[in-house]
């Protein structure tokens, strides 16, 4: 089996418009959470989100090009461009024909759909815009990335709610490891700030009225986020042969289903996904030096995830820092796992573990070393990135410093 490395990374989120801005925000523990500006929140019980502030399709897309892309697909392409440029991919006709694109998204272009349905249901108009379908489909991000780079290989989108991007990255990793493809662009993108979507989240009663405080005793729920992170994955040998930058190695991927409840998490399901990732990477629990937690800051998730970590790591838990960067970039749903994988890669590469921001008070039910508020210098070799979706579909990535 081939070793798989990350040679390119790109992102756009509340923490900035590229990887260096993201890294700077994360290591300063600076949260991107603030009052939601891109949707009207006057009729909502919550007001805050982690948005890409003052986002405009320019200078990224010409007006006519942007007409075809919902905000979530624009984010996907913006992040993919940075990742491909950073990897300095040397395109050949053969590579374009075999390269894969695997993206994750939860709600896709539902913001576009929301506008169209408002036209017919509320305004009583007789028609919706003809691009409603192609802008709404969750695979639009992958499709536009393929057109952007002329990639004609296997391309598809995975939608597993909050685990989408982890399932996507894991799939891309396995496809390269097994020799199905020699290059993959993979990650996730999301843009859920539309009134109808926000009302649906309000009805779930899981969104915090102020901010996101994972693992803190006074946590009051999640904060929605948006954005994208994309990676270029390649075999280690190919990356070395052409002198490409190597940010980290992907060494394992594990999945599981809770088969329990549609929204309540199961610590056993989460634990099985972590064990599967360790097994896939041939790692012992004691080798893991950091976990980027799912850490949504809902009362249920954080307790369940803490129990799962104790179950898998036992006494090693006390020596293993665990943080949730959702405290800074919010919960970007189908993009969340990609942003968190990026945070974990940066932690390995730069030797600086990201903090859990907004942390105020220790919770005995979440007895983990959560790196409260301040990033921590630590040279670690292996990290996990946890994602546990609504619907009980779990995905965990294992990463190695290179």
């Amino acid at each position, binding site marked *: 089996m081939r070793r798989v490395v990350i040679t390119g990374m790109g992102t756009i989120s509340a923490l900035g418009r590229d990887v260096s801005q993201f890294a700077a925000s994360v290591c300063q523990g600076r949260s991107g959470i603030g009052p939601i500006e891109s949707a009207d929140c006057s009729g909502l*019980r919550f007001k805050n989100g982690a948005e890409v502030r003052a986002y405009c399709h320019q200078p990224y897309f010409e007006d006519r090009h942007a007409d075809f892309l919902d905000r979530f697909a624009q984010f996907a392409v913006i992040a993919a461009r940075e990742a491909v440029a950073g990897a300095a991919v040397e395109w050949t006709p053969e590579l374009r024909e075999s390269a894969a694109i695997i993206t994750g998204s939860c709600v896709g272009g539902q913001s576009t759909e929301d506008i169209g349905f408002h036209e017919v249901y509320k305004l009583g108009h007789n028609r919706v815009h003809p691009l409603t379908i192609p802008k709404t489909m969750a695979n639009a991000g992958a499709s536009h990335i393929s057109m952007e780079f002329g990639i004609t290989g296997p391309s598809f989108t995975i939608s597993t709610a909050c685990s989408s991007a982890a399932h996507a990255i894991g799939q891309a990793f396995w496809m390269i490891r097994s020799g199905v493809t020699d290059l993959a662009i993979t990650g996730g993108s999301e843009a859920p700030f539309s009134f109808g979507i926000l009302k649906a989240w309000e*009805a*779930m*009663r899981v969104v915090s009225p102020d901010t996101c405080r994972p693992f803190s005793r006074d946590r009051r*729920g999640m904060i929605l986020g948006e954005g994208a992170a994309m990676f270029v994955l390649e075999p280690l040998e190919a990356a070395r042969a052409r002198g490409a930058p190597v940010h980290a190695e992907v060494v394992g991927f594990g999945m599981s289903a809770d088969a329990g409840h549609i*929204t*309540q998490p199961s610590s056993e399901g989460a634990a099985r996904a972590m064990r599967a990732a360790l097994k896939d990477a041939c790692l012992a629990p004691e080798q893991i030096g950091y976990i980027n937690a799912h850490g949504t800051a809902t009362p249920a998730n954080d307790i369940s995830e803490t129990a799962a970590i104790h179950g898998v790591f036992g006494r090693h838990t006390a020596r293993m820092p665990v943080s949730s960067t959702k405290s800074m970039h919010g919960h970007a749903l189908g993009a969340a796992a990609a942003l968190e994988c990026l945070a974990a890669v940066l932690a390995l590469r730069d030797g600086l573990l990201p903090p859990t921001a907004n942390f105020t008070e220790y919770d005995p039910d979440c007895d983990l070393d959560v790196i409260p508020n301040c990033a921590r210098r630590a040279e670690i070799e292996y990290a996990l990135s946890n994602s546990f979706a609504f619907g009980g579909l779990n995905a965990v990535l294992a990463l190695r410093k290179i």
Partner: protein
Amino acid sequence: MPEELTERILRVIATSKRIPLEQVTITSEFQQLNIDSMDAVEILFALENEFDINIPDEEVREVRTVRQMVDGVAKLVAAKSAARPVNSADAAASQ
């Protein structure tokens, strides 16, 4: 507590959870009725519709029994009807 209000709440809980009305009493605890967090959120939604009220998240965090739910709804319904005469006076004045 007006009996009619309690009866309506019991009916909303039974309908939402799809259990016989006889099973739901003022002394029932959610755990006895097998009401989990998602069931509770659905019941709140149904109560908001039934009484045309908004139930804030803070009001429901510690609610674990039918009686607590009835008390909370009664308070919100009372607050709504206290506000109503003022509104209708305003409406009359503006006509």
